[in-house]
């Protein structure tokens, strides 16, 4: 079965699947990569960035465009999405992946935020989720909207946090569904993995 997160017709956003090894060797031309400039400006000696530094980095890069910069909790979530070595930080390769994913989500969000107000309503969020391939019960959509809205509206920041969480949960499920049947057996001991992805 196809999992959500695949590009909608017309594409426009990152479909998931991690490319590149985290923390791999520097590639030729890395110093010329414009993203590297933003990254290096905040990363310390260890070449990694934590949630605070990510927040600064993303704000300075202007990836949010006209939207408000990301709050710290969302940055923390974004790190946990890509933090394969469980260090609580991102290296440059992981940062680049994050950038690509978030850019895709931003394109998608903008297509729903037609009046450019910076937030969408519940209906629009529901449509956005359907377009990303999620088939959720009304109960689940209500829960998601409540969890990720600010005064009844969903801002770009809220939307990114929502996408990160859904993506993490999907990956958690997909890892166990080797046969791609859309059904998985969870053991009690898997509880820690679920908590890790919440």
């Amino acid at each position: 079965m196809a999992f959500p997160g695949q590009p909608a017709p017309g594409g426009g956003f990152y479909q998931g699947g991690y490319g590149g090894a985290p923390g791999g060797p520097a590639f030729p031309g890395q110093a010329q990569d414009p993203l590297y400039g933003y990254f290096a400006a905040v990363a310390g000696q260890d070449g990694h960035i934590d949630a605070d530094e990510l927040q600064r980095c993303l704000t300075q890069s202007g990836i949010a465009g006209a939207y408000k910069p990301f709050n710290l909790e969302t940055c923390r979530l974004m790190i946990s999405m890509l933090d394969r070595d469980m260090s609580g930080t991102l290296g440059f390769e992981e940062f680049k992946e994050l950038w690509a994913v978030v850019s895709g989500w931003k394109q998608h969000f903008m297509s729903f935020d037609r009046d450019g107000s910076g937030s969408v309503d519940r209906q629009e969020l529901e449509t956005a989720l359907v377009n990303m391939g999620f088939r959720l019960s009304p109960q689940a959509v209500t829960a998601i909207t409540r969890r990720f809205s600010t005064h009844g509206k969903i801002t770009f920041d809220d939307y990114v946090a929502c996408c990160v969480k859904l993506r993490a949960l999907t990956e958690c499920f997909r890892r166990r569904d080797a046969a791609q049947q859309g059904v998985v057996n969870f053991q009690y001991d898997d509880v820690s993995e679920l908590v890790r992805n919440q």
Partner: protein
Amino acid sequence: APGAPPPGAYPGAYPGAPYGGGPYGQPGPYGGPQPGPYGGGAPGGNAPPGVDPEAFSWFQAVDTDHSGYISVKELKQALVNSNWSTFNDETCMLMINMFDKTRSGRIDVYGFSALLRFIQQWRSLFQQYDRDQSGSISFNELQQAFTQMGYNLSPQFSQLLLARYGQRSSNPSIQLDRFIQICMQLQSTTDAFREKDTGLVGNVRLSYEDFLTMVVTRMM
């Protein structure tokens, strides 16, 4: 140990079921934050029936917009960790959801009063596990806490939580708010599994949609 499960059953007895005490000792006399220099307000005169007067006066102080309800934002301002940081949004949201009977995203004075007892129980547990009394819980202390609560969790899991929620240091540790968040999420997931595992076989079979629904409605 309290709540020690029979083999094959679900562990994780924990204090603070909504509106009640738990297996880790009875809620004692209200021992929350210290009353201010002016005392706890009118002695029981204005408190609704069944609500501790100190809890009531604290409720009024926290309900800054005087709506008669406390929101996540108001709650956040009222709760501090041992390092004086305010409780994080996630923990406040989880707690509000737990005591919010109307699913409106905020709690009334009864819910708040129960929430204070809940926090006090968790604070006591936290202090117990914080063996070196540093005000935060580090790796060994967290491992021990999980074991004593009846969970069988890997060291990698504790390590990940500390990396994610602790300060960046060689010995990261977590504050009370994150400790509460983690324990609530563990318990909530356990409960969700238990609910689905009607045959008590120790595993549940879920479709992708059921899985997402289970997680988003209970735990987020």
